[in-house]
């Protein structure tokens, strides 16, 4: 079964540093998403991406966040200057149609120290 692949599985970074989280969505999917889950809490929407541009973003997705699809397969989330409260599990997801039948990756655990 096709999978969404995320790397790295765990990243530790110092406060103020930039991090890039990487995702390879399922090849025939057209919609890409980033969600995050702070430990023990609910899954929260960050951003959706379609046709090479952001289609929606939440209040969490402020100027320190950016997304990019640098080539035909990768989808990245960049956090410019990490804060302690950015520590969370970050999930990439993709879907064929918008807002339906997401496939999530296994996540990247980001720890900001």
């Amino acid at each position, binding site marked *: 079964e096709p999978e*969404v692949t995320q790397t790295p599985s765990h990243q530790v970074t110092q406060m103020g540093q930039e991090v890039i989280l990487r995702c390879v969505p399922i090849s025939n999917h057209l*919609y890409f*998403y980033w969600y995050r889950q702070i430990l023990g*809490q*609910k*899954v*929260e*929407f960050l951003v*959706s991406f*379609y046709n090479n541009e952001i*289609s*929606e973003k*939440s209040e969490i997705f402020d100027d320190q966040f950016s997304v990019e699809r640098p080539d035909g397969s990768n989808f990245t989330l960049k956090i410019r200057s990490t804060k302690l409260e950015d520590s969370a599990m970050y*999930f990439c*997801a993709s*879907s064929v149609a*918008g*807002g*339906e*039948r*997401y*496939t*999530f*990756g*296994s*996540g990247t655990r980001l720890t900001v120290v």
Partner: protein
Amino acid sequence: QQQVKQSPQSLIVQKGGISIINCAYENTAFDYFPWYQQFPGKGPALLIAIRPDVSEKKEGRFTISFNKSAKQFSLHIMDSQPGDSATYFCAANDHNYGQNFVFGPGTRLSVLP
């Protein structure tokens, strides 16, 4: 308005029993209601989903019951097994508004052998 409430927070069921998790929403524009299953260290995986034009959907041991007038929907797991032990999230989406999901806070299910 965009919240999805979920209960109980945790649930313990004996093997072979029925697990019932309930969700409620306020936004009547929501038109797609998936349930996701999440094992520790993994991303959420789509279990089953329903649209508001039907009152029930069954897939194997999993059934969604949907009450449009009450703005409630529930997941029933029949013949619960220890392998069902996971965190379950309900979610909702309004396709006219966008592609992102609003997730409930999750229910941690433990099925005792």
